[in-house]
């Protein structure tokens, strides 16, 4: 009952016209930032922070948090339509989203992404409201060995990203892991694989690499098929542009999966939304009755990761608001904001400033509704972009990619890297290597290596530390089980064949 009373207090704060107005501004800005690849919520919030100094702090955090979770809604748009990941957490969305678009179901994919975002976003707020303190305490049990196991579990998802050849998928993943080692080694401050290039000291920019491999690579492959053939089909009529009842039914499990995984992973300061989106995608495929559809346009393959990256936003606020610990860039800026507004973020924040916490929680419920109402009508509008003929669409994709990648660091070097990765993406498609496996290695490589070396520092080089701790042990067992799946499937299909032959 206590939570209910507090929530009412929160709604009293969030429903004042001023706060409602700024919540709307926040989520609209967030959507825009999410749609545009490159410029992310962290940079946007940092730029707007000065404007909030004259506001009431509750209003300010409502507006900035709106940008944070609003960006997660918009991130899917360019992923689905143009194969350009809008945010790093929307990379997985490209896999099935873009395939759906090619089959004329762009509207359904965009719609389901908005609906999944709404459901998972709301579940994230519910979690933040109901179980934040105990979850934050649980998250503290995650030390380097646990993170290592989590990263291994993430890498095991390669099983579900592989096309016809497991070997090719593993090779691509290894290249991704190698790419992640480029840059300055955190532990020795030495540089690795930088070939004397100062610009590589900071590592390969993730956005440049993914946009190159997905968007540019795809354009290059399509350019080969000459003739003015239509690449995209687009259904006529508004109703055909939205998800069908069957789509919603197919995504039942994905909604739950994305919400839970996203929220839990979000609460861990060392993981992040991209990890959550890959995990939820893998889980979705593992439990699917028709796994062969994944990668070729499965609607659940859009719903799960898009849900996960929205629930993650709620999860990420858990350590920030209950312990004063920021998990990522965006939450670090919100922490800086809290200090500038005169608060002392820490374990006592909720207790001493309930109107701030509950106002924010209530505003997030409202914000999620606003986002759904905003985003659904935009679906048919955005889908129209696919009516463009290819000679307009391809330059458009390349243009958006260049601007997006350049805007991250204002660096032309990154644009060249994008071109290079575009070529790599093209070659991989030609040789039938799964591009997503490479990206998976790149996303997880950094965290995996770090956690492994940190664990070994903890244990004085004793590698058993990875398996003997309860949480990491369980996670590793699950990872091993997943890695065995293809073999089990093979044995089973071989048995079926044999039995059939004998019968």
């Amino acid at each position: 009952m206590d939570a209910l009373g507090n929530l009412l207090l929160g709604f009293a704060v969030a429903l004042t016209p001023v706060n409602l107005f700024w919540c709307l501004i926040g989520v609209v800005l967030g959507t825009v930032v999410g749609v545009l690849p490159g410029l992310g919520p962290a940079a946007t919030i940092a730029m707007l922070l000065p404007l909030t100094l004259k506001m009431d702090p509750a209003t300010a955090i409502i507006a900035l948090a709106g940008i944070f979770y609003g960006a997660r809604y918009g991130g899917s748009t360019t992923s689905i339509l143009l194969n350009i990941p809008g945010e790093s957490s929307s990379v997985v969305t490209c896999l099935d989203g873009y395939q759906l678009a090619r089959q004329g179901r762009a509207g359904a994919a965009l719609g389901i992404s908005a609906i999944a975002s709404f459901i998972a976003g709301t579940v994230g707020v519910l979690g933040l409201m109901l179980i934040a303190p105990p979850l934050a305490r649980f998250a503290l049990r995650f030390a380097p060995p646990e993170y290592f196991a989590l990263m291994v579990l993430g890498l095991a998802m390669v099983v579900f990203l592989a096309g016809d050849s497991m070997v090719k998928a593993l090779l691509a993943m290894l290249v991704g892991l190698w790419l992640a080692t480029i840059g300055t080694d955190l532990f020795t401050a030495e540089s690795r694989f930088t070939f004397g290039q100062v610009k590589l000291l900071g590592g390969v920019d993730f956005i440049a690499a993914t946009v190159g491999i997905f968007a540019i690579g795809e354009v290059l492959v399509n350019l080969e098929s000459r003739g003015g053939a239509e690449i995209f089909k687009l259904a006529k009529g508004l109703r055909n542009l939205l998800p069908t009842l069957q789509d919603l039914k197919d995504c039942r499990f994905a909604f739950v999966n994305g919400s839970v995984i996203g929220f839990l992973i979000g609460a861990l300061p060392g993981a992040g939304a991209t990890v959550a989106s890959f995990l939820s995608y893998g889980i979705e495929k593992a439990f699917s009755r028709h796994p062969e559809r994944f990668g070729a346009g499965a609607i659940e393959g859009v719903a799960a990761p898009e849900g996960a990256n929205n629930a993650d936003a709620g999860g990420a606020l858990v350590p920030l608001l209950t312990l004063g610990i920021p998990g990522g860039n965006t939450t670090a800026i919100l922490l800086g904001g809290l200090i500038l507004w005169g608060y002392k973020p820490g374990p006592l924040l909720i207790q001493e400033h309930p109107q701030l916490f509950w106002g924010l929680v209530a505003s997030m419920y409202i914000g999620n509704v606003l986002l759904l109402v905003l985003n659904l009508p935009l679906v048919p509008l955005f889908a129209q972009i696919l009516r463009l003929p290819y000679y307009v669409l391809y330059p458009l994709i390349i243009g958006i990619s260049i601007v997006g990648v350049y805007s991250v660091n204002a660096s032309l070097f990154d644009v060249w890297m994008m071109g290079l990765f575009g070529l790599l993406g093209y070659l991989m498609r030609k040789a039938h290597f799964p591009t997503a496996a490479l990206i998976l290695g790149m996303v997880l490589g950094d965290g995996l290596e770090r956690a492994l070396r940190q664990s070994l520092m903890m244990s004085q080089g004793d590698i058993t530390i990875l398996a003997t701790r309860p949480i990491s042990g369980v996670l590793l067992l699950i990872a091993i089980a997943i890695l065995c799946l293809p073999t089990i499937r093979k044995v089973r299909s071989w048995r079926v064949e044999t039995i059939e032959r004998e019968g």
Partner: protein
Amino acid sequence: MKNRAILLPIAVAAITTVSSGLAWSQEFKPSKQIETVVHTGPGGGSDLLARAIAELLQKEKLVSQRLQVVNKSGGGSAVAMSYLAEKKGETHTIGFFTGVWVTNPLTTAEATVTIKDLTPVVRLVLEPAVIAVKADSPYKNMKDFIDAAKKNPKQLAQSGGSVTSRDNLMRLLIQKATGAQWNFISFPSGGERLSNLLGGHVQIMVIEPQEAGEQIRAGNLRVIAALGEKRLASLPNVPTLKEQGIDVPLIPQARGVMAPPGVPREVVQYWEGVFDRFEKTATWKQYLEQNQFEDGYLKGPGLSKFFDDLTAQMREVLKEAGAKVVR
């Protein structure tokens, strides 16, 4: 390349305008947005400080143009420093330095730009730090911890930033002075350092008092030593290392403003004038207090000497720590 081709004539024009006007006016005044380079991503320490100062300068109406923060993160500070060096003679670019700008080029071969290549403007803050343990830990002071570390060499651990960060260098200095040994585990984000301490996975951490403050108040952390010449005003009961019999050189964490190489003297004078006035404002004093920073205001020859001394000290500390010093 194209970009520079456009910028160069502008820079040259700016310099000639300024020098031709010298006879009757030595004033430089920014005529467009000021590019403000930081070496961290959005949300990092330098980023937050630069954005706060940009805001406060404007609030006090001390600069006529906007300071636009540009994040050049990567390679410790190498990417930001080489970016500044490329802007040679550019009058509308400044950067925010920290101690990393001194240590990073010492250990990274590719980081060819050193602090000597840039133009120092002012040092603004000195960040104090404290050593914290979990509130339920058995260590009530440094002696307890050092004794435990001696009894179980390399069994205890400290969480911190990169190996060239102040946290680790202080550990190496204390280890050398006391003979105790414990591990150092690097975490790139401050959040992870703190959560590993709170989770009991490491035993100690060097932390800024502002970051520790609320954890202490909530009963999660205990502070066992102050890393400074004197005790902190906010933690008057916490003795310094020296008071606890550990006499090691203290490594200051300084933050301030740098300009690209070869900027006209007038530009440095302009910024010195701005920060002279800024340093005295109540707004700035309040900001220092909120963040529990020390006022580290220093400019001119004093600042150059500070960098020379710090570079020499760091080189020694890093060498002794067994790090590969490349220059």
